[in-house]
């Protein structure tokens, strides 16, 4: 179902990479008259270029409530959901404030906006929790079996809970929840891309998670379509196929450092002094249980297939080649060298045999 695109779109979280890219793309779309970016923080300098065509309002979530009604917003895109605590913005407390309280206030404001037709909320596949009894592949209808340990995953469950409440109270608004797999691309900086960019990558001993990624460009396409078109419902957004964590580490040419699960975060925090990215409970849950989702609902409804996990990861590797040690070329060279050595040795042994 395709209806007319909304004329006024409010995007939250424009001080971050994804929010800024979405707002820029909406501003470039001629069908949309006005794009307003809401964020309590100023965007960093590198995003300023992107936000040229976007009206920016610097407001925290409470002030945003008044802004939403005053602007006559027809669509709200809620992207101000962070996956890792940012020490510059209050650490974990600030993260929870933004994720949970922020979502609550934005949704409350959206509920009171009379002209609102569309709501798009960024969620994550972390919403499926992590349990040993989980099915291997999650569909949108899978209920989480255990409350996840990770702070981000718990926030995501709260966020989705608020959206459920919103859907009950404003059933005529098309609410889209997009559960993204970890985003990856050549340019985007996320905790996971920083993790794979390290020369030595800590993993969980005895566990090899099944991972899925989604390319940032595909995520943007899905977000854009869900705003200009009408796709109510919850959708998994991920690249098809699976990479094992060990396989991804090897493809990136890095060296895995398996650490025992108990105390992994402590060890990782200590190793962080040596330049290793910090690992939180969210990552540990992901690396112990893995997370694979079914995207057939997305493909059917949006008529769009994100590039596969392997392709997205390939693109990421190419731009982060520096720091890799076990590259494919080096392995192939070593293979040739050993093979030649074995052949020479056998040839020498053969000639010695025939002389005897």
């Amino acid at each position: 179902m395709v209806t007319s695109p909304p004329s006024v779109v409010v995007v939250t979280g424009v001080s971050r990479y994804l929010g800024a890219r979405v707002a820029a793309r909406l501003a470039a779309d001629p069908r949309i008259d006005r794009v307003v970016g809401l964020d309590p923080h100023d965007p960093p300098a590198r995003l300023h270029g992107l936000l040229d065509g976007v009206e920016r309002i610097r407001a925290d979530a409470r002030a945003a409530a008044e802004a939403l009604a005053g602007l006559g917003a027809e669509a709200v895109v809620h992207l101000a959901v962070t996956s890792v605590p940012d020490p510059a913005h209050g650490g974990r407390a600030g993260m929870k404030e933004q994720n949970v309280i922020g979502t609550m206030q934005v949704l409350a404001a959206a509920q009171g906006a009379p002209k609102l037709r569309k709501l798009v909320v960024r969620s994550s596949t972390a919403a499926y929790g992590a349990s040993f009894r989980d099915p291997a592949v999650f569909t949108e209808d899978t209920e989480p079996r255990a409350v996840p340990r990770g702070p981000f995953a718990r926030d995501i469950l709260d966020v989705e809970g608020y959206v459920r409440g919103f859907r009950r109270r404003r059933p005529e608004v098309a609410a889209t929840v997009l559960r993204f797999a970890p985003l990856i691309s050549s340019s985007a900086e996320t905790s996971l891309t920083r993790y794979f960019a390290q020369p030595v990558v800590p993993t969980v001993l005895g566990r090899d998670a099944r991972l899925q990624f989604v390319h940032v460009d595909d995520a943007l396409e899905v977000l854009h379509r869900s705003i200009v078109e009408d796709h109510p419902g919850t959708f998994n957004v991920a690249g098809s196929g699976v990479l094992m964590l060990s396989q991804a580490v090897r493809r990136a040419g890095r060296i895995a450092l398996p650490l025992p699960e108990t105390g992994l975060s402590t060890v990782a925090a200590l190793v962080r002094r040596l330049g290793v990215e910090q690992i939180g409970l969210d990552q540990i849950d992901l690396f112990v249980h893995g997370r694979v989702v079914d995207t057939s609902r997305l493909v059917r409804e949006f008529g769009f297939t994100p590039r596969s996990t392997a392709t997205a990861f390939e693109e990421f590797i190419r731009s982060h080649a520096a720091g890799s040690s076990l590259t494919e070329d080096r392995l192939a060279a070593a293979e040739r060298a050993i093979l030649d050595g074995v052949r020479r040795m056998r040839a020498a042994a053969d000639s010695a045999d025939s002389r005897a």
Partner: protein
Amino acid sequence: MSQDEFRDMLPGHAEFQLPEPPAPKKMNGRRPVPEKPDEQLAKLEQTAEPEAAAGDVWDRRVAAGLAFLRRRLAGAYEVDEFGFDPELTEAVFHPMLRVLYRDWFRTEVFGIENVPAEGPGLVVGNHSGTLALDALMLTVALRENHPRRRHLRLLGADLVFRVPGMSELARAAGATVACNPDAERLMATDQLVGVFPEGFKGIGKRFSERYKLQRFGRGGFVSAALRTGTPIVPVAIVGAEEIYPILADLKPLARLLGVPYFPVTPTFPWLGPLGLVPLPSKWLIQFCPPIPTAHLTEYADDPLVVYNLADQVRETIQATLHELLQKRPDPFAR
């Protein structure tokens, strides 16, 4: 001096030809190593390393081994969404299990024609033997004997997936957690699924109760098969009961360790790790005619239909077990 030179020196023996060695043929138990690597390996070799085709057998083997190692280290292999790694299974797990299957247990397979050549199938078997070796042997039996060399995708207890290390081995070998969404997903993608409804009740039972089928749970496997219209193939496995005969079960110790049972066998735990060596019983595996379910799809939620079908499968396996036991009066026969 080489053989050729020596032969030429002998008077009148210049034209003598050594008789051709006999073609390799299948014998009982051991089979000679085929001179020709199988097709799949040859194809992999050619795509990966064209010059490897030159040289003799050992040269090719070394090249194939190195190419395999390089692919593993570079991560250049495919894994499906359940974590199944066909290359690793084929190159590492199955060769090791084949030694147990062929030389240790001298396994014989009957009724392989009852396993569907293509499309989904649900193989339901009796479970026994303390450690789930019967499930692994069943995978090898299908891979070795089925004309299409099908992989069996096992459904395992969640305990298997809780244990670090073991969980990843199980996933790489094609197993997944026994739950209806996974079972239905595998069957919907035309896979052959293997399930042991007795679960721990089957493998943890005493030796005195051998070949007595335990309760089949709630028949969840039947409703998964009904929902996807998958034929059910009952299979009876004889031989696994004797590999680790359980004389006693130390329940308090099991509870302490968080495992369903703690077995005491004639060798375990007395001999320590040596007690893990299975006794060399003779194994027979019989696949029974498939039970079609395509006409029962709408009864997947009907408890009576599900229960009756589960009972039918159970009876079939129990009867076949008795037949097989008559074929094999001595558990440790050749």
